[in-house]
């Protein structure tokens, strides 16, 4: 099943945060605890979610305990959209 939100999150991460890396990012891959998205880029991810999906992610939620994969982040976005 393709998840539109995951696809857009992954695209943002690979083009903007990983600066066009050829890496294939899966929805279940750890992005925070792995250091793939480092702490300096977490706020970019939050702002992207805000602009693209109209969902606010609080700074206290920007850690691996709240979400560590784009699949989990997509789930948060869906819950808040509905």
């Amino acid at each position, binding site marked *: 099943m393709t998840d539109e939100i995951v696809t857009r999150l992954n695209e943002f991460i690979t083009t903007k945060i*990983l*600066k066009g*890396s*050829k*890496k294939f990012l899966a929805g279940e891959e750890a992005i*925070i*605890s*792995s*250091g*793939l998205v*480092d*702490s*300096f*880029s*977490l*706020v*970019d991810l*939050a*702002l992207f979610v805000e602009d693209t999906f109209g969902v606010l992610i609080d*700074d*206290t939620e*920007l*850690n*691996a305990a709240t979400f560590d994969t784009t699949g989990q982040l997509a789930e948060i976005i869906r819950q808040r959209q509905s």
Partner: protein
Amino acid sequence: MTTLAHILKEKSETCLDRAAVILMKSGEPDRTITYGELVQGSLAVAGTLSAHGIKPDEVVVLILQHGSQLIFSFFGAILHGAIPSIMPFLTEKLLPERYRDGLSSLVSITQPAAIMTYAEFEPEVRAALKTGDSVRAVINESTSQIQVDEDFSGLEGLKRSENDIVLLQHSSGTTGLQKGVALSHRAVLNQLESYSLAIQLRENDVVVSWLPLYHDMGLIAGFLVPILTGVPLVLMSPFDWVRAPYRLMQAVSQYRGTLTWLPNFAYNFCAQKIRPRHMQGVDLSSWRAVINCSEPMRWDSHQQFLACFAPYGLKASALATCYAMAENVFAVTQGGMGSAANVDEIDRQELQTHMRAEPAAPGRPSVKMVSAGRPIANTKVRILSAEGDDLPERKVGEIALYSDCMLSEYYRRPDETRKAFLDGWYLTGDYGYMADGEVYITGRKKDLIIVGGKNIYPQDLEELAMQAEGVHPGRVAAFGVEDVDAGTEEVVIVAEVDIENEVERERIAEDIRERINHGSDVAVQRVHLVGKGWLVKTSSGKVSRSANREKFLVEVEKNQTANT
């Protein structure tokens, strides 16, 4: 005779109920710590250290996050006469094994007698220790609830001499942790005196800081300067700030902050990542100095910051600069107090080819150099040639300094200490020039990468990259290149591999990225794989980082031209 312990004692007598620190934590109400509470909390820690048999002059490593416990432990160690050294806390991305390696290497060189940390982190700390180590006690909050007499009688800290070492400062990474800058009471207090003058510190100042306390800028400017001079400090954690940079602006507005120190990248970071909705009702007019320090200062970064925050009351005259290093306790120079820091527009080619800073003629390619200001009152600066001779105005050379606040030594590293001095002058390893009495920093002699104000040793990154399968040992170079957008440096890894298959090469690059992300304090994107023989070596057969950096930049520029 005055030591830091005497100052704390004096503060507890004269300003018991005054706010020393206002601690901010995301998701929690702000907490005010008065001088009375600070001293009481610190005395309790001093008692704990004493009960654990820790002797004065022994090193106590603190592995604690921003908060009251770190503050009390730091000053508690000093009141006990011991030597505190703050180590960065484990981050989410760093592999525990790597953290352990760093800690082990710190322990083996620095020989601490105790480590203070959280109960839940104690197993991690113990895993880094070996039998026969110097560490006699790992102390956590549950073992530190010891009742003590809350007074200063018999306190070991008051028996210390001015020339005794009061604290150690380390850079991060395996290499940085092996070289602790040892500072005496006298050095710290002399720095405080001269630096307070340089920034015209006054009683109604309010310092706002999010800087880590294991770094000189955070520990001295953003911690000891306010606390020891009686100026209130609003302290938030770097962990919170990086996720919500607007909290800095809100804190300045709420507490009428007047002074803040920031590494250059933070100007870009704030300007790019703070939204108008975060700035509603924010008033920055109280800020009299936002001081750029600890990585190359960029004119563009100041302009971006000003353009973004002038509508909220930020004054152009508040943009200040400072050149600092732990080896001089903190500041060497200070610029831009009361008016914006000077900008010297110089000829780019003259700088690059002749190491000369000539004012640029109209139409010539130029570089806008931001002045680091004048040496502070107790510090003298010279610009030296490779032969150690003084260079004239506007000639670029190595910056050497002499002051009454220089390091006592690199702790237990007589070899490193000897190398760092020339006839009593400390050789900074930075390149720069003087013009009209002001210092301008142009680059570095040492192969150090500074990312977001953090010192990164390339050898640590190279060692990690060499562990990737398919990479030849000894055939890796790590260096920093300018990241204009972020206002800092970006790490580049160049590695020689034999494999030509594209998929395989991408896998190796990914492996290198992962090893560095997990094994160091930086995240790396740019891994450049090259064929055998690409890397430039020195005559002694070592990979030359600077030469390979040049080669890489030329190659990248060529590719960019080819693609346009």
